[in-house]
C-alpha cells in the first residue's frame, strides 16, 4: 500500500477527481457495452487511472497529447468532455469524431488531443513530428505520447526514440507498462525488460515511476516536462501499472493468474489518495451527475445523415 499523505490538498483533489471520472465513466461503458449501445473494440483503462491523471496534470492546455486505442482515460484527463466521448462511442454525429472513430479513435483539436491510434506504435512517429513542428516554430510546448510497453517491440519505437533524441525534440514518451500486450507478458516477448534502460540507449533521459500512485506520476511528469520545455530533449517515463480488466471486451483473459490480478487490486490507485471529510463523496456525486448527463446527451444525439458518408476524405476548402 502506498503511503497516504495530505500534502497539496488541491492537487490531490484534482488527481482523485480525474481518476474517479475515468473509473466511473468506464464502469458505465461496461454496462452500455452489454446493452449494445457501444460496439466494436473497447479497451478499458481501469486500474491505470493514475497514469493519465498524473501525466495530464503536468501538461498545459498548449501542450499536445498523442494516444492509443486505450484512450478514454487520457481523453478525460485531458479535458475532453465526457459527453462528446460518450456520443462518439454511441456512433453519433455529436461525438468527438462524428461517430466515425468510436472508442478507439477519440480526437479533439480544441484540447490538442491528437487521437486514439489503434495501430500499436502508430502514434509515436506522429508525436515526433508534432514536436518537430513545435521546435521549428519555436513554440515552447511538450508533446506527451502514450503507448504500451508492448509497443516497445515495434521498430517504430526504436526509430522514433532515435529521431527524437538526435534532434532533441520536446517529447514526453509515456510508456504505460501494464505488463501485458494482449495475452503476452513482457518477459515473454522482450529480451530486456528494463524499459528505462532501453530508452536510455538512445541517449534519452529515462526513469521508472510507480504508476499506481498519481502523485508520483504527477511529480515525475512535472519534472520531465520542465526539462523538456527547457530544451533538454525527449524524456521517457516507464509508468508501472496494471489493467484490472481484460485487454478488450472480447478477451477471455486466460493468460493471467487470478491471484496476480487480486494482488494488484490491493494497490488500487483510487485508494492511494484520501481526501478529508466528505470530499470524496461530493466528488462521486458530481461525477455521477456528469455521467448521467453524458449518457443522456449521447442517447439524444443524432446520427450523421448517410449522405455525408464521403465527407472528410478530402478537406473541405
Amino acid at each position, binding site marked *: 500500500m502506498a503511503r497516504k499523505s495530505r500534502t497539496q490538498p488541491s492537487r490531490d483533489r484534482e488527481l482523485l477527481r480525474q481518476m474517479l471520472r475515468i473509473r466511473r465513466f468506464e464502469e458505465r461503458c461496461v454496462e452500455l457495452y452489454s446493452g449494445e449501445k457501444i460496439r466494436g473494440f473497447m479497451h478499458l483503462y481501469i486500474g491505470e487511472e493514475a497514469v493519465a491523471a498524473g501525466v495530464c496534470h503536468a501538461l498545459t492546455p498548449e501542450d499536445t497529447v498523442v494516444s492509443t486505442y486505450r484512450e478514454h482515460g487520457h481523453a478525460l484527463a485531458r479535458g475532453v468532455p465526457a459527453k462528446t466521448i460518450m456520443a462518439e462511442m454511441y456512433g453519433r454525429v455529436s461525438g468527438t469524431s462524428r*461517430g*466515425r*472513430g468510436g472508442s478507439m479513435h477519440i480526437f479533439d483539436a480544441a484540447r490538442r488531443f491528437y487521437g486514439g491510434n489503434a495501430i500499436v506504435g*502508430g502514434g509515436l512517429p506522429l508525436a515526433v513530428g508534432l514536436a518537430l513542428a513545435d521546435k521549428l516554430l519555436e513554440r515552447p510546448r511538450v508533446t506527451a505520447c502514450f503507448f504500451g510497453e508492448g509497443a516497445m517491440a515495434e*521498430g517504430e519505437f526504436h526509430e522514433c526514440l532515435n529521431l527524437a533524441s538526435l534532434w532533441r525534440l520536446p517529447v514526453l514518451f509515456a510508456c504505460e507498462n501494464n505488463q501485458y500486450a494482449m*495475452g503476452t507478458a513482457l518477459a515473454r516477448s522482450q529480451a530486456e525488460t528494463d524499459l528505462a534502460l532501453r530508452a536510455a540507449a538512445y541517449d534519452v533521459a529515462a526513469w521508472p515511476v510507480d504508476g499506481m500512485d498519481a502523485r508520483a506520476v504527477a511529480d515525475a511528469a512535472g519534472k520531465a516536462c520542465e526539462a523538456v520545455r527547457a530544451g533538454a530533449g525527449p524524456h521517457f517515463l516507464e509508468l508501472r501499472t496494471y489493467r484490472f480488466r481484460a485487454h478488450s471486451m472480447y478477451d477471455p483473459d*486466460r493468460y493471467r493468474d487470478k491471484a496476480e490480478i487480486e494482488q494488484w487490486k490491493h494497490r488500487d490507485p483510487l485508494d492511494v489518495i484520501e481526501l478529508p471529510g466528505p470530499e470524496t463523496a461530493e466528488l462521486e456525486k458530481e461525477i455521477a451527475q456528469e455521467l448521467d448527463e453524458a449518457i443522456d446527451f449521447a442517447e439524444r444525439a443524432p446520427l450523421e445523415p448517410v449522405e455525408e458518408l464521403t465527407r472528410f476524405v478530402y478537406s473541405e476548402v
Partner: protein
Amino acid sequence: MTTYREAMREAISEALLADERVFLMGEDVGMYGGCFAVSLGLLEKFGPERVRDTPLSESAFVGAGIGAAMGGMRPIVEIMTVNFSLLALDQILNNAATILHMSGGQFNVPLVIRMTTGAGRQLAAQHSHSLEGWYAHIPGLRILAPATVADARWMLAPALADPDPVLIFEHGSLYNVPGEPGTEKVDIVSAAVRRPGRDVTLLAYGGTLHKALSAAEELAGGGIEAEVVDLRVLRPLDEASIVASVAKTHRAVIVDEGWRSGSLSAEIAARLADRAFYELDAPVERVCTAEVPIPYARHMEEAALPQVPAVVEAARRAVSS
C-alpha cells in the same frame, strides 16, 4: 458440421502433424489462443517451439518467416489483421515476393502468411480495411481467399506445398459461419462456380461471396438466374473460369470489398473488356466499398460496404440493359 474457425484450426493442426518443418508463429497465437481463437489449444498440443508467440514486431517476424522458409522450414505466419500487415509490407513485397526472381531462380520462399481482412464489425478504419487486392497486385505471391468452410479446411495444405509465398486472407466475419468441411481436397488455382445460372454472373470472393449468394437467391425470386463465381484465388486470377461464365451469361457484376479505384474489381473489369468484350451484352457492373476509410457508426459502415440490395440492383441493371 463445424465452423470456418474450427476448419482452419483443423487444417493447421493437420499440417503440424504432417510435417516436422511446419510451425505457426505470430502475435498471441499460443498462450492467448489466437486473437480470433483460431489456434486455441494448439500450444498445449504442439508446444511453444511449434506454436510460437512473437512480440509486436510484424516486420521482424514476417521477415524471419521468410528467412526460415529459405532455411528449409515451412512456416505459417499469422498476422492479426491485414491492417497490421502493412508494417511488414516491405518484407512481403521486397523480400518474399522478389527473392526468387532477383536471385535468378536460386532461392525460393515456401512461406504461408495468414491474416484476417474485412469490415462489418464496427471496428473503425484502422481495423476494417480490405487490402487483399493490393497484395494481388504483387507478382510472386499467390493470394487465396477462402470463403467456405471447405476451403478454410483444405486450402492450407496445398498452400504449404507451394514452393512460393502464399497469402491466405480470412474475412473476419466468416469465423463463426457453420458448414461441412467435407473430405475432398481443393486446388489453389481455380475459381469455383458456387451457384449455376444463365442470366448474369456475380463474381465475388471471401466475405462478399455470401452477399452474392443472397443476392442470387433474391434475384431468383424475380426470375433472374444468377451464376455465382467464387474467385477463391485472387492471384493468379483464374481468367478462364471468369470468361467462361461470362460467355454463358453475357453479363457480369463484380462484388469486391476493396475500394473501387485501382481495385481487384478494376482488374477483372479490364480483363473482361480485353478477353470477353464481344460476349458482353451490358457494361460490367461493380459493387465495391465506398471510397472512404471505414467509419465506426453502424449505419455509416453499412452504407460504406457492398450490400445485397446493391448487388441485386446492379444485376437487374445489367440484365435489363
